């Protein structure tokens, strides 16, 4: 994969004129990292097209596609009619014609009109056609809560897609992953549901090395390794990685060493690093914003129990959104897992 920062077009460059030459790292927000990742993917492969509501002139409501229209034109950056089934369904046809559509769903709660196209068409086309009709499509969805939004703007639908064979589901949690994971997802020949923690789009910058991907797409990563004795293993992804890391800092002040793993890929799951950690710690806690009932945490708990049964000192615990609809925003802090709920779960685990 070429990692160079391309210098084509005009409007986009002004936006990103703090860009460094090839091979150098850049300090970017998650939003800018995703934007640059899309830009470089489009430069790299002329078959990549971006489509969705407001992705063109406006650059997306979160500005993730900012400048792409100027650089790549309206044939490749397509403002669509407001119809999610239409967006994903026409992307299927474009993929059949040899394109690599990158579809933006404006908000998590608005993916459902496209749900049929995603689970019945996108996910099954390769299977139905015995491999003859691949679906190299990325469906980007800003997801998760904590932004004080009205209904339908704060949801975490990952399990609904991870449950669907034929789809792959990944989520990034920092700018470096934002840049590289979106590029890798676009290069993937399978359809990828790409979940972006919208709360973190503009919430701080980080170093992004542009010369090489930090690792494969479908792999989890230990983001807070612990040398020596581990109190518990905390598994998180997307917006809860930061929560888990903060909880680990707080726990360490109390003498508990939490190893934190960013799952990154939700389908397929990559749990080998989890098993390795749990065999040392004997305790695992999964943290996600999605409802706990039949969520990713349930699957992780089942598999971890199968693989690490004799190492476990306590059942795998889940910290997540309650099994209610996402509440009105004045209550969302209580709904979302936070540092204290993670630490509470550590205490409960230790009490077994």
């Amino acid at each position: 994969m070429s990692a160079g920062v391309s210098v084509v077009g005009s409007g986009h460059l002004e936006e990103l004129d703090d860009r460094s030459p090839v091979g150098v790292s850049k300090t970017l927000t998650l939003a800018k990292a995703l934007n640059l990742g899309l830009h470089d993917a489009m430069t790299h492969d002329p078959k990549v097209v971006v489509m969705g509501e407001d992705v063109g002139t406006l650059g997306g409501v979160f500005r993730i596609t900012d400048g792409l229209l100027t650089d790549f034109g309206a044939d490749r950056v397509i403002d669509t009619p407001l119809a999610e089934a239409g967006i994903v369904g026409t992307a299927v046809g474009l993929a059949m014609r040899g394109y690599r559509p990158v579809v933006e769903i404006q908000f998590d709660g608005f993916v459902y009109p496209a749900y049929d196209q995603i689970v019945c068409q996108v996910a099954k086309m390769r299977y139905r056609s015995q491999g003859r009709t691949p679906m190299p499509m990325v469906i980007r969805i800003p997801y998760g809560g904590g932004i004080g939004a009205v209904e339908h703007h704060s949801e975490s639908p990952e399990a609904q897609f991870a449950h669907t064979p034929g789809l792959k589901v990944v989520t990034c949690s920092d700018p470096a992953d934002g840049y590289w994971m979106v590029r890798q997802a676009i290069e993937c020949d399978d359809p990828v549901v790409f979940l972006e923690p919208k709360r973190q789009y503009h919430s701080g910058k980080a170093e992004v090395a542009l010369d090489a991907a930090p690792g494969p797409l479908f792999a989890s990563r230990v983001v807070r390794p612990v040398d020596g004795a581990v109190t518990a293993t905390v598994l998180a992804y997307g917006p809860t990685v930061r929560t888990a890391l903060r909880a680990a800092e707080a726990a360490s002040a109390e003498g508990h060493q939490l190893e934190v793993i960013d799952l990154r890929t939700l389908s397929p799951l990559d749990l080998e690093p989890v098993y390795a950690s749990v065999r040392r710690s004997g305790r695992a806690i999964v943290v996600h914003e999605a409802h706990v009932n039949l969520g990713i945490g349930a699957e992780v708990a089942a598999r971890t129990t199968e693989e690490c049964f004799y190492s476990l000192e306590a059942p795998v615990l889940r910290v997540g959104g309650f099994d209610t609809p996402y509440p009105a925003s004045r209550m969302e802090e209580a709904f979302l897992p936070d540092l204290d709920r993670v630490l509470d779960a550590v205490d409960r685990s230790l009490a077994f």
Partner: protein
Amino acid sequence: MVTIHPERHPEHHRQDTAPPAEGHADGGPDMVQLLTPDGERRHHPLYDADFSAEQVRALYRDMALTRRLDVEATALQRHGELGLWAQLLGQEAAQIGAAHALRPQDFVFPTYREHAVAWVRGVDPLQILSLWRGVDHGGWDPHEHNFGQYTVVIGAQTLHAVGYAMGAQCDGVVGTGDADVDTAVVAHFGDGASSQGDVSEAFVFAASYNAPVVFFCQNNQWAISEPVIRQTRVPLYQRAAGFGFPGVRVDGNDVLATYAVTQRALQAAREGQGPFLIEAYTYRMGAHTTTDDPTRYRSSAEVEHWRARDPLARVETYLRRTVGADQRFFDDVAAEADELGHELREGCKAMPDPDPLRIFDHVYAEPPAELVAQRDAFADYHASFEDA
């Protein structure tokens, strides 16, 4: 479903049972017809074509052969060789006319009933039967025949067609003036599917991008048990106007007319004039599928009415009386149909059951380790029975 109580809403009840124009069994004055049910050639100011004798014979032959395909498949289902079959009986003219108007570079997105279109596109009929037998989800290569997979979720494929057509636009294969290059796409769907949101969205997208797509709606009057009046109060072709592109109703039992209209619509699309809606006014003579019992919801008088409008009979009359085809031609076609029937029966029965390990094939380009492990575990488990 909303139940309308006539006592409480008398005005609703009137509309419900006596809709404005739909259900008109003769298709109304706007319907394009080039061959009457009696085999008389008519002409149309906009949608007409010159047909050579050879062309008419070819159209007849394909209709006769695909009718036999349908009859054989229905019989194979009765004998337990197919799990299910969706009959095309009565819709041969709609499908054969539409398919003959295609050029090789055009692409077709079918429903689950376009067996005759598949036939014209060169799909081996056994690769259609394999789907209904439960061997696979359709054995043909969509890209070899420019004929997509059968789509069971009604209406979904209309969006795929529009996206494909948008891709053709981006590829610069629309409106070049080169007959071997310019490309159009056909989206098949039914009268029932016309109510699906996907179809409306497909109309919106096609209009918005001026996509080279021909929406070909076979209004066969029924969506399982629901009559077309349940789907629409205006003739379906008139919906196109609201989306901003032309719509035409054609006699779907008249193969000359379906050919001529589709040919015009495809040509316009290839030239860059954008989408087109064709409503082929036809009738599903058979059951919805082999599990359906249409006597529960429609009258034999209605079926008889349509039997008198049989799509093959009128071409046969026209061929014998006007175009010139002797008995030998019909005998040859019948013999060919017999041979096809034999091949289908033998070929279908000879299809081996697939290896159950094929369950795991083609889920992903790169199967995840977990899935490979699941497959391997099943392979061992399965083998343990063979050893026993």
